[in-house]
């Protein structure tokens, strides 16, 4: 962080800009964050605990956890594989591959949900085949997992790829020359080099996976006590006019977000 005080800049102007930035951020970003906890605890700890321990809320927490436990490791494997293929090798179409990896970033989760419904839904392309074989993808766990995989696809790759590219392949090549096999090269040379970026990507992926709303609301069917993930449960409670319950459920998701941000700060310190 180099910062230069140019002689032409006035202290007054600097203070004014910092002041505007701080006040706007407090009102626009910090207030919504704080307000979640303020409202969740507005009727005391006991009501908060009752809301969290409500069976429907517990089920939503459990379902969201299951989805994250399935999606995050798959995404980590995909992200590492994609980064390894793109950063350590030269092949035609690399640029296109990187763009395709980023597609889920720019596609609205709602569109992702619609895509999946048109593929696996009852009227979808694979619908008749799935029904003939008695397989339920939509409005069930597989659909929620698949759409979450779509939405989170770029998260790990995007963190690991630039780092692998910057580090080059000299160390790995040296290891191969010394007789290491592929697995040894990866676990002893590459993995230690990328571990913080990998962990950070996994943290971001987890935060996104547990918070996914638009795509999941299309494919889940919002069946209470069955396919209601935590973000959907927040909406359900809000629509039921149970504001404190909605904020209590939201506070658990907010806590995950805050932990992700703190981890990010710690990991950035390590990487620097």
């Amino acid at each position, binding site marked *: 962080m180099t910062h230069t005080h140019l002689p032409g*800049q006035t202290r007054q102007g600097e203070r004014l800009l910092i002041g505007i930035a*701080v006040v706007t951020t407090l009102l626009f970003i910090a207030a919504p*964050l704080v307000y979640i906890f303020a409202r969740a605890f507005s009727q005391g700890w006991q009501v908060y605990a009752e809301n969290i321990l409500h069976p429907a809320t517990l089920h939503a927490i459990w379902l969201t956890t299951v989805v994250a436990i399935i999606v995050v490791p798959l995404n980590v*494997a995909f992200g590492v594989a994609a980064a390894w*293929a793109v950063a350590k*090798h030269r092949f035609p179409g690399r640029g296109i591959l990187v763009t395709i990896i980023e597609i889920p970033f720019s596609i609205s989760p709602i569109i992702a949900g619609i895509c999946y419904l048109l593929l696996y839904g009852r009227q979808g392309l694979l619908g008749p085949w799935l029904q003939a074989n008695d397989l339920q993808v939509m409005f069930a766990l597989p659909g929620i997992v*698949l759409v979450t995989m779509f939405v989170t696809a770029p998260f790990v790759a995007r963190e690991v790829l630039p780092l692998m590219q910057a580090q080059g392949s000299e160390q790995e090549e040296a290891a191969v020359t010394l007789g290491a096999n592929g697995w040894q090269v990866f676990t002893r040379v590459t993995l230690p080099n990328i571990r913080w970026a990998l962990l950070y990507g996994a943290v971001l992926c987890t935060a996104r996976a547990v918070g996914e709303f*638009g795509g999941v609301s299309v494919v889940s069917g919002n069946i209470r006590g069955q396919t209601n993930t935590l973000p959907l449960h927040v909406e359900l409670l809000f629509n039921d006019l149970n504001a404190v319950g909605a904020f209590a459920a939201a506070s658990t998701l907010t806590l995950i977000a805050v932990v992700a941000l703190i981890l990010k*700060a710690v990991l950035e310190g390590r990487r620097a």
Partner: protein
Amino acid sequence: MTAVAAPIRAKRVLPGFTLSLGTTLLYLTFIVLIPVLALILKGAEIGPARFWQIVSSPRAVAAFQITLTAAVIATVFNAIYGLLMAWVLVRYEFRGKRILDALMDVPFALPTAVAGLSLTALFSANGWFGGVLEAAGLQVVYTIWGIALAMAFTSVPFVVRTIQPVLEDMDPALEQAAVTLGARPWAIFTRVVFPAILPAWLAGCTTAFARSLGEFGAIVFIAGNLPFRTEIAALLAFIRLEEFDYNGAAAIALVLLGFALVLLIASNLLQNWAAKHREATR
């Protein structure tokens, strides 16, 4: 990196190429490409005449207009606020700067539904801000301003985080030269700093705009979702699905997909320009 002129085979020293590329292609094909293809095939099945009929219906046109207008408002706000934040975070030292920097990631980390819930309550009549604003005659919740607010909240990090590295990399000698030549602070900003960060600023704004067009979770809470008034395009597609009108949903989704892909390409081109620009100005 190594041996540029060597034939392709010689460069594949490292193992695992087939395995890693195979995994990548398999994942992308099944998770991303085939589902998107299903949507495009559905569009082809609908046919151009019916497609046009759906997307030019008054309710769909109103939804597209509302979405675009709110996204423009949100992006203009973020263009200014995001630029200010990037500038303040890179150029000045002050207490609490690290917290301010961390707060810029909140919209990324916070689930959109949670953001929507909190903003709605905050800006409704009995919330912290809603009471004050309504006394002043400004209604945010259930209006287009609420939609723009939710869009701005969820997309602001894209602007800040795209400009920040470019500002950090800028050669201070350029500005010092301008100072030596007697330029005033505002002139230095508009003539030296701003041209250097312009490509990154545009790229960030493009991504933020694309994100705003596709935003759903935060908006459904705050918009009130009245057809012709506060119904966004993504929600209309969702409503069509719930009515089992898959053609209607697919047609609207295809229009949004088209916007998203065009903006993705635009943002990539701008970022390439920004990268070249950066090399030239440091």
